[in-house]
């Protein structure tokens, strides 16, 4: 990595940006000098473009529209508070260990942006590339892991097989004995994978977009999408009045179907509850992200010390944003079984998000059947890691009218051509 900071940027960072220097200076003045991280403006009557959804994807889209394409007369409309949907409800894992070249290109583009995001946004989003280990629990898993590693390396995403001994060294708490219910046969590791601080990513994009002139409008729910005689969008109705525009980007995980319905079309999406869990804070006992293929359980330890646990989504459609007990017990029992010392560790909190699941578990990016309305949806359980690329590609499409190269394979058309990009099909790895 190399950093090129021009003189004006040093002055900006030390003076009004965020830095250790400024923190000390403000501390000596009682922290009275910190201004709002973003403004709370009144909505204007018209914008050049609107982004519906103030989560990570929506805020990132606004930021990249302003920064990469110079579009600053734009607004993000958020029904509640920014980052309050799935951006603030996930297990914070970032990775690009995908099988298909299309997925690898998309998610690795995202990971690369994440790697420099703190510098770019001048906000510590706490990208921690501590690595992710995927465990194989049977011969079939292990053969699959070899196939995956070969494919990923061929895709330019570096991963490496690990022996059982290496896994035991990296994850001392894991039961790797042959008598375990899910014995460990091996696994693979992506070193560049890790975690990020989910709230900070929303806030960092919001602050950076705000600085570029983007209006972030919270507590503003879109209740209708207006279309002109030619069918193209002309604006939106909101709980804070009508707003005119000719371009709308939808980044509303958990609400995509409802917004599409307002615009008069349907999507290949079903919405489910996805649960996540955190234990009480513990002294460091796990320094990688671990995914067990057979139980579909994710585990990592946050900087605060809690074990952050994720699993598959609940098995019936739901917008309730709360998980059910059988799914919770399945996931937590897997952790207690695979990490025998963690049985006495206590669950602190469970929460859930509403995730938009598509049959092939890949996103839908690009144009919609309605002129002027662009899609960023269907990320299923894996949207967090894709925030930078989701924002970049939606901004690119809205600004230029053409799909970004890495987003092109993920168009809505694939559901009638059959060109699905189904990572699960290639392995059964949940995501």
């Amino acid at each position: 990595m190399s950093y090129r900071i021009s003189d004006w940027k040093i002055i900006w960072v030390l003076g009004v940006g965020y830095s250790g220097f400024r923190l000390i200076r403000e501390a000596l003045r009682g922290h009275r000098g910190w201004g709002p991280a973003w403004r709370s403006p009144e909505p204007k009557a018209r914008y050049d473009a609107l982004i519906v959804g103030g989560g990570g994807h929506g805020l990132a889209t606004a930021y990249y529209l302003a920064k990469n394409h110079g579009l600053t007369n734009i607004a993000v409309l958020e029904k509640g508070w920014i980052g309050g949907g799935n951006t603030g409800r996930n297990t914070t894992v970032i990775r690009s260990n995908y099988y298909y070249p299309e997925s690898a290109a998309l998610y690795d583009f995202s990971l690369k942006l994440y790697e420099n995001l703190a510098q770019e946004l001048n906000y510590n989003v706490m990208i921690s590339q501590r690595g992710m280990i995927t465990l194989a629990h049977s011969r079939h898993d292990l053969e699959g892991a070899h196939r995956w590693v070969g494919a990923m390396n061929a895709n330019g995403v570096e991963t490496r097989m690990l022996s059982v001994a290496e896994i035991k060294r990296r994850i001392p708490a894991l039961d790797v004995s042959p008598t375990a219910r899910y014995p460990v046969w091996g696994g693979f590791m992506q070193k560049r994978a890790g975690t990020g601080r989910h709230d900070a990513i929303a806030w960092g994009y919001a602050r950076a977009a705000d600085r570029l002139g983007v209006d972030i409008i919270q507590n503003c729910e879109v209740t209708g999408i207006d279309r002109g005689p030619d069918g193209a969008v002309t604006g939106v109705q909101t709980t804070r009045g009508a707003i005119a525009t000719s371009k709308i980007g939808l980044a509303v995980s958990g609400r995509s179907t409802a917004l599409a319905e307002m615009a008069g079309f349907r999507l290949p999406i079903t919405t489910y509850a996805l649960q996540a869990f955190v234990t009480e804070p513990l002294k460091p006992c796990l320094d990688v992200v671990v995914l067990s293929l057979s139980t579909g359980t994710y585990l990592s330890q946050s900087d605060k010390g809690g074990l952050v646990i994720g699993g598959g989504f609940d098995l019936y459609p739901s917008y309730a944003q709360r998980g059910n007990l059988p799914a919770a017990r399945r996931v937590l029992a897997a952790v207690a079984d695979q990490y025998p010392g963690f049985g006495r560790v206590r669950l602190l909190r469970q929460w859930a998000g509403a995730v938009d699941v598509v049959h092939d578990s890949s996103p839908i990016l690009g144009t919609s059947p309605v002129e002027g309305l662009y899609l960023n949806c269907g990320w299923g359980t894996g949207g967090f890691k894709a925030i930078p690329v989701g924002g970049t590609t939606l901004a690119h499409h809205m600004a230029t009218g053409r799909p970004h190269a890495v987003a092109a394979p993920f168009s809505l058309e694939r559901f009638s051509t059959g060109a699905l990009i189904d990572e699960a099909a290639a392995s059964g790895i949940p995501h």
Partner: protein
Amino acid sequence: MSGRRLDQGGQVDRSQPLSFTFEGRAYTGFVGDTLASALLANGVSVVGRSFKLHRPRGLFAAGSDEPNALVQLETGARTEPNLKATEIELYEGLSARAVNCWPSARFDLGAVNGLADRFFPAGFYYKTFMWPDWHLYEWAIRRAAGLGKAPKDADPDRYDMRFAHCDVLVVGGGPAGLAAARAAASGGARVMLVEQDAALGGRLNWDAAAIDGTDGLAWTDKVLEELDAAEEAQVLTRTTAIGYFDHNLIGLVERVSDHVEQADSDKPRQRFWQVRAGQVILATGVEERPIVFPGNDRPGVMMASAVRRYLNQYGVAAGQSAVIFANNDEAYLTADTLHAAGVEVAAIVDTRVSVSPDVLAAMSTRAVPIYSEVQITATRGRKALSSVLVSGAQVDEWIDCDLLAVSGGFNPRLQLFRQSGGKPDYDEAKAMFVPDLSVQAETSVGGAAGELGLGEALTVAHEAGVAAVAESGYRAADLVAPVADSRAPQLTPFWRVDEGKGKAFVDFQNDVTVEDIALSARENFVSVEHLKRYTTLGMAPDQGKTSGVTGLAILGELTGRSVAETGATADRFPFVPTALGTLAGQARGELFRPIKRMAAHEVHEELGAVFEEYGGWARPAYYPEPGESGWDAEQREALCVRQAAGLFDGSPLGKIEVVGPDAGTFLDRIYANRLSNLKPGRLRYGLMLNELGVVIDDGVAACLGENHFMVGTTGAGADTIAAWLEEWHQTEWPELDIVIAPMTQQWGVLTLSGPRARDILDAVGVEADISAEAFPHMRFIETNVAGVPARIFRVSFTGELSYEVNVPARRMPDMWRAFMTAGQPFGLSSVGLDAWMVLRTEKGYLHVGADTDGATVPDDIGWARVMKKQSDFIGRRSLTQPENLRTDRYQLVGLETVGSNAMLPVGAHLFMGGADGGSEGYVTSSGFSPTLQHGVALAMVKGGRARMGQVFEVRMDKALHRARIVDPCFYDPSGDRLND
């Protein structure tokens, strides 16, 4: 603070001392103590350190709301991190340490953090540690963070799980809960009452009150007797309701053995209950909330109710000289209680302008100075409180004290109500959030409903109990509601002291101060969720029990909004932290997703089989002879099948009978190829697709008779395909007159394969004529084998003469032995899956799930011919979608190693012109053929069938091979041996 045990009073048994250690020092307590009360009785003032600044902290509360006294209980495999000392019942020999401090809570090197506290405001880490990279700083932050330590060894304890159903579940065994349960149980309904503490009575254990003219605890005992006498009533103490789930399912944790030194071996440590209740009555009481003021975290500052509880329940005075700081009438109850126990009350500091005369009247006999309209603006004392500064219009006075009892009002415990989906509302008059809209079948009573007057609470709770059972069709007995004094403490909201110097903590556990909230507001983090996430307010193990409402009220004040406008954050399962092992219950080890065993499992064990899990079954991988490796055994077994014969247990293969006039029509729709024209006694290989055209299973279907078929599936597909057939029949084609009967586990399958198979079957004894002429390949007969009724399918997965002999599953052990005995002269060997896979790979036979994946359509495996079929079948339309017509799709081919006889690794990718050119395909199956003495492999290759003869690089890790694309069948391509 210098706590001490009183000579009398409380419920501890002074005749039964218990010794324990804290931070390595020995102390004594009594039966009936909690670790917290025993520490307080021993004068221990510093019980822990705060999370961020490592400030010394003393006990603040007496229940699950305790924010400071977090301990690591015991050591070794039974160690448990982050327990609240207030929740640990003392037992002989208990040992505990404070968490997150070194070397001890009294003297902690981490306290240097406190010196630089001004550099650690809320969210400071978002503004720095960016250059060059967060990861550079992270390790240090991680080491500083975290509280207790996770156990390193396997949890030796056992956990239990139970389901229960009841008409009424009452949560909380305080006076309101008891009144509700008593009324509900009186009519014979099934009632469960759960109480998180060891004793029923709730607040009656520390605040004396008369009910029905008698002492509150005597009344409690009487109600307990009544509940014990009611046949359908059940009382669970030491049981916490932790979750309120859909459709009135409540999760309970019963602490069965935590409070005893040595658990009975037949008892679990904890038991998780899932209770489905007709009606739920929430009698969870209130949580007292503090007033926030500068210097409020000094050891010796305590919740007023906790002071009374330590005194009256445990016989422990929390100090020698007390000041009371409150905005409500209970200040005077606290003063009375302390005074009665001989603790000096130096002052009552009341933030209110006036107090009702009858409250003061009760105080008139006490010589306690009362200050009105004043605040505490500072405190002194190094590791224990020594004095407080009382400030007001007329007063500015330091008062010496070692105990400050604080009360800022009361918050109904709404956690379960909100988990149920209920919506609370802010009651301005009572200055508290109270339950408003119910979503599920529940009612809140007593303190949980915001009712602080005991008499009124009892009346309402009694009526709620009567009404709840009426919903289940029961009539409560004609009981009179319990009677008690109805006065409720008066209160004037007061959240924080806005003057004075020193840090004013809102969330003790996470060191969140008023300044942090102000900073959060200044930076526009004004939604409560933003406040919570930016400052970490309420995110600690106490889940904001003492800080949540206060924090948002302060945010409201700072942003010019009312408490109601500011709103509240969500409450999440679990109400109190719960061990993962408890939630798992018995589902650990063998009982965590149990593995199925085949009927002849024990025979395979006797034969020395090494088992592996395949598709949920424990199956023999190979049968090593002494000195043999797995590889040796596999090669020997595979060779034996080619040269003599092998016996393979094929029992997990799916066997689903489809019977009825429309069976043929149904199967034509299910299979991609035609089945309806199959004649009785004949077999046909078939391919099943899903609606996307993807191959999901294959197998041999048999026509057992007129309108009677048997669908054979892979082992992994046995259950899913049976469910799949049912789904299509019931939901799409209910008009078809068929019955689907999964028979997989009714029949065991002895698969006898090899050139001597017929000789061996004859030797075992078979009634039917099994000559090649009478019983050719792909036929079925029903006969007796060794006197046992059997169905024999002549079908082969090895390329050799094979019989799949189906016998009733329970006969499998005998039959396996009989076959082995009869086969011995012919050289028969048991054969495991490893050899079986080598044999089928030699033949190029497809293994669905290994050679195919979730994207494979029939043409990819050479089955384009299904499109010639006239009628529709599942997945047909998908096969003509553009993507499935591409010629560069992955196609199944054989791979022959070039330049060596090496075995190619499964999962290796194929390249042309170096690894940078992109993958052209991958190896799906591979083995070393002992017959051919070279590797045999199958692969999926882009446009593979058109690339016969091309040579690829096969790479995996550092290994590099060269291989040529060939026909998938390596052995006996003419199939002569098969038809023998």
